[in-house]
């Protein structure tokens, strides 16, 4: 063994990102334990992303909270290592359609920005979570979302939270349909999401990222 060549610097000069957009229902029905658990879930996401050095460097996150008076709040994109999990408040209605349109625009704008900066990227993940049903015109947004997924522009996960989430409507946002979260397993869901970003960050050429199984948080039932 010759050993490592003396004085060699080994640092990462590459610029690559694995974008993640969270589209979170923060309507009035999320008040109380659900919104608190969502806040805690975002903190788990934050910790788990930062726990892995490659993911901390490559993960890039934008959080979109929708609710209020048909309001859609968008955070700036942040690298996982700089991510500060927001604590959105729960109130008002459920403008899912508007939020998804904003999310799809954010994703394409982010790609544009990364390309302009010479930064390569992996396919973005969009995760939509809702505990109710859309109160705005959501059908065309669902069609757009599914089309973006089919065109390989984004990986979409639609998650139904709690018994009142209208899974049939959420199903329309992805060809895979929506998945109902088991009880309030926000922590498990967000750890799974972090591990998915980890898998995408490290996916090598010719490989579709192998995402972890969802059974830690998904309800076994079909609805």
């Amino acid at each position, binding site marked *: 063994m010759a050993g490592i060549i003396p004085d060699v*610097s080994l640092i990462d000069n590459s*610029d690559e990102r694995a974008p993640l957009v969270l589209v979170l229902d923060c309507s009035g029905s999320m008040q109380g334990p659900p919104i608190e658990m969502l806040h805690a879930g975002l903190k788990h996401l934050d910790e788990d992303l930062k726990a892995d050095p490659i993911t901390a460097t490559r993960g890039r996150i934008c959080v979109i909270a929708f609710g209020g008076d048909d309001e859609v709040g968008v955070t700036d994109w942040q690298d996982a290592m700089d991510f500060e999990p927001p604590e959105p408040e729960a109130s008002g209605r459920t403008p899912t359609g508007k939020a998804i349109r904003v999310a799809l625009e954010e994703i394409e704008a982010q790609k544009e920005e990364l390309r302009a900066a010479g930064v390569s990227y992996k396919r973005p993940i969009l995760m939509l979570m809702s505990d109710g049903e859309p109160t705005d015109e959501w059908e065309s947004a669902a069609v757009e979302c599914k089309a973006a997924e089919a065109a390989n522009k984004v990986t979409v996960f639609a998650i139904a939270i709690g018994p009142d989430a209208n899974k049939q409507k959420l199903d329309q946002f992805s060809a895979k349909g929506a998945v109902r979260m088991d009880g309030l397993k926000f922590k498990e869901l967000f750890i799974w999401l972090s591990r998915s970003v980890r898998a995408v960050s490290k996916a090598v*050429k010719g490989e579709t990222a192998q995402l972890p199984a969802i059974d830690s948080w998904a309800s076994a039932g079909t609805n």
Partner: protein
Amino acid sequence: MPWKVFAASAIGKNHIDTGIPCQDDFSYHLVGDVFVGVVCDGAGSASHSEIGAKACSRSVVDTITAKLEKGETDSVLGVCERDFMVFSVEAARAKLQSVADESGCDFKDLSCTLVGCVASPKGGCLFHIGDGFAVADFDEGESVVSLPENGEYANETYFVTAAEWQSKLRVTPLPAAQAGCVALMSDGAAPFVINKGRTGMYKPFIEPVLRYLSSATQDEGDSGLKDTLSDERTYTITGDDKTLMVALLQ
């Protein structure tokens, strides 16, 4: 010999953890004052890509070497170099097809990328399909580089086995002034070997390497490179296999 060539591949952390072999391979040969080198990186999605990377790198080097040994230096280094590189990759594809037939696997199971170089004191060229990286001349601002080419996403690249390989084959001429010092690498090594702007080598990496190689025997040089590429610090940079070949005209 007019050239000193050092090269090594190191298996990536992901492959160690999952028990998959190193899917990078390389080959090189010297004919008189001409250096011929190729690095191939097998596709993670292809089941026998380590075999493909080995067969492809050897085949391309063999084809070019055979031509040079016949004294047909001009067809390699002259005006028709692109045609000749097309011919060499075609021969490698034929080789891959026969490997596939013999082993009963699919042609695509042998998918790999390719980055190579022919260089002499009179000049040469870089040739490239897919990702990986080539740099000729390590002096800042002087380097000629061949960049990785991917699809929209960083994990989508182009392979020698692709139907559209001809349109993905890029040939970059090397002027004599740049052809005396060449590095070829797989995309696992590029993040720490290449500088941030992707315009050439990352000095804090390559300068100590060149210092070390200048007085190293062949064995010391190759294993020094291998141990460096295998260093645990690379695990936080990439999970992928890492290959680096450095060719220095004396």
